[in-house]
């Protein structure tokens, strides 16, 4: 086995593990730029995962699964937005409830549909679509450009969302709502409506992330399989400093840190495995502590608007 072969295997695993984080984190970046922190992202991911599985079975194809997954993630985010933005409930508490409820609901639906004791589903999967020329680049080519279409969606969204947020009037409104909602409102921006669609956009992408997890990665569904990815995605947004291209890079770095743990354990290094498992999180802590440069969250993040008196 050659060194390059091991490196390529590691890079492929990094991208596979990083893409669902990237999709969820890119959506959450837009959400947080509008001043909403959606802790319920995990709920959207697991709903997207189950939606992806059910949709793929119902329509007999992975593409249908991705659409149903996106819709499921959207619906969960609508519930969150209805409470956190519509009624002005505390974003953190509401998001936590959405996550717990999402995990419980998907479990109940899965058990009702496939029996209480579970079954390994055989789902139509999103086959990797190699991009001509690019996938022939040595070492990184197959890792980056021989992936499922949902991975390319993440690559395209990163620059597109940057352009949207920083070069369009609409993006300016989103950022204004996230920084100075009172000023934005005075200037005629509909604050709650902007936050609503920014949040549901994030939920939809989290749904796609869940569908990707099931249809492009695992090929099957298990309860609780989101395994905390919603929370990691929120950390990735901070790591990427609320800037879409950096968020994509941060997600892939995080995927690499996760992939490293499996390859390091398999190499049989005589170190406690918990050390490897902790590695991605230590990386996040280091980033949060300002290791990759200071960053500032949107000023109105997690603040209810209009402010309760």
């Amino acid at each position, binding site marked *: *086995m050659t060194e390059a*072969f*091991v490196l390529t*295997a590691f890079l492929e*695993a990094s991208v*596979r*593990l990083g893409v*669902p984080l990237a999709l969820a984190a890119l959506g959450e970046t837009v959400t947080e730029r509008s001043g909403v922190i959606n802790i319920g992202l995990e709920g959207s991911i697991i709903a997207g995962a189950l939606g992806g599985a059910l949709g793929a079975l119902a329509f007999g194809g992975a593409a249908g699964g991705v659409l149903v997954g996106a819709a499921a993630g959207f619906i969960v985010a609508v519930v969150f937005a209805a*409470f956190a933005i519509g*009624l*002005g*409930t*505390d974003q953190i*508490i*509401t998001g*936590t*409830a*959405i996550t*717990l*409820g999402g*995990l*419980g*609901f998907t*479990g*109940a639906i*899965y*058990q009702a549909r*496939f*029996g*209480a*004791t*579970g*079954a*390994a*589903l055989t789902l139509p999967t999103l086959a990797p679509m190699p991009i001509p020329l690019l996938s022939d680049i040595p070492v990184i080519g197959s890792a980056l450009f021989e992936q499922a279409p949902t991975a390319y969606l993440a690559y395209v969204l990163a620059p597109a969302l940057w352009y949207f947020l920083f070069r369009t009037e609409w993006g300016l409104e989103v950022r204004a709502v996230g920084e100075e909602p009172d000023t934005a409102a005075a200037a005629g921006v509909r604050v709650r409506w902007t936050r609503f669609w920014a949040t549901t956009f994030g939920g939809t992408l989290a749904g796609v992330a869940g569908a990707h*997890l099931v249809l492009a*990665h*695992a*090929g*099957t*569904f*298990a*309860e*609780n*399989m989101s*395994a*905390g990815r919603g929370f990691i995605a929120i950390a990735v947004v901070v790591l990427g400093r609320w800037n879409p291209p950096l968020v994509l890079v941060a997600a892939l770095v995080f995927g690499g840190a*996760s*992939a490293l743990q*499996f*390859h390091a*354990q*398999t*190499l*049989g290094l005589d170190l406690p*495995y*918990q050390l490897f*498992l902790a590695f991605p999180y230590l990386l996040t802590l280091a980033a949060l502590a300002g290791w990759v440069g200071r960053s500032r969250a949107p000023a109105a993040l997690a603040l*209810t608007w209009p402010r*309760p008196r």
Partner: protein
Amino acid sequence: MRRCIGAPILVACLAFAACSGEARTDPDGAAPTFRAALLTSGPVSDAGWYAGAYDGLMLLRDSMGAQVSHQQTRTPAEFDEAFLSYAADGYDLVFAHGSEYMDAAMRAGEQFPNTTFVVSGGGSFSTNVVPLIFELWEATYLAGMVAGGMSQSGVVGMVGGVAIPPVQGTFRAFEAGARAVDPDIEILEAYTGDWNDVAAAKEATVAQLRRGADVIIHNVDGASFGVFQAVREAVDAGGVAWALGMNGNQNDVVPEVILGSAVIRIADAFRETAVAWQAGEVGGASIYAGSSTDIVDFVINPVLADRIPARLIAAMQEARARVRSGELKVPSVPFVEGEPGAS
């Protein structure tokens, strides 16, 4: 103030929805013979460890007329609360399916002397708290023999959730079984840190397959689907690879790649425990359930039986008989302090 009402109501609604496993039943309206409850800290839809316990609870309902209830606890903070709710509600027998419940069960046992608590894989006991220890290592030893004999590459792999004694015990025995057949075999070991993270289990398996492993055993819950999927994809890509099932009979989960399963007949063990409890024989000592009582066994997948050399099957069967008779001691990890572990 109006704005503050929404969140608590939402939390309450969703918390209720989250208790998805609740299944209180009263068969035919007849008075139940006794009341039994099951606590799991993961979903019962894993076709393995938790699914077997849920089947056991249903068996108590259907064959013994018990009134039953199941709860899935989410965090360790809920353990005490769950025990309290069942014991205070007058449940006679509470099965807590995992060693993580041990400390909370001891506390509940002191508080509620009239309820008997059975902790699967637990590590201590009192008059009304007993560990039910499955000697699964006796079966994974046999699984190791099959793995060692079937491996063409001389490398086999083990993928676990968390390195707790019940998992380590099965892996040490697997290694011993594999080495009994092929002393030079290389054995890879990886943990994912999560019992249900399908993607992580799949990546861990892929990493082992890439390192040349061609037989993979797991000890995770729902995430086992990821292990099987990785092996199936390796086979679809033209490779030769096999998987081994664990905790329940998983042979028909992915029949084309699973050579056999190290099975715990958890339902039967629950039933036997309940029968012994009715006879007043449960309490003050650990219950060991192993291959001598047929609770633990290695079951070859009938679909793939003709792919395993007859010589290997014969050697495995012979070792199985020696394990059952107690002649062959399989390495294991002790559960209860001062007790040897293996029977």
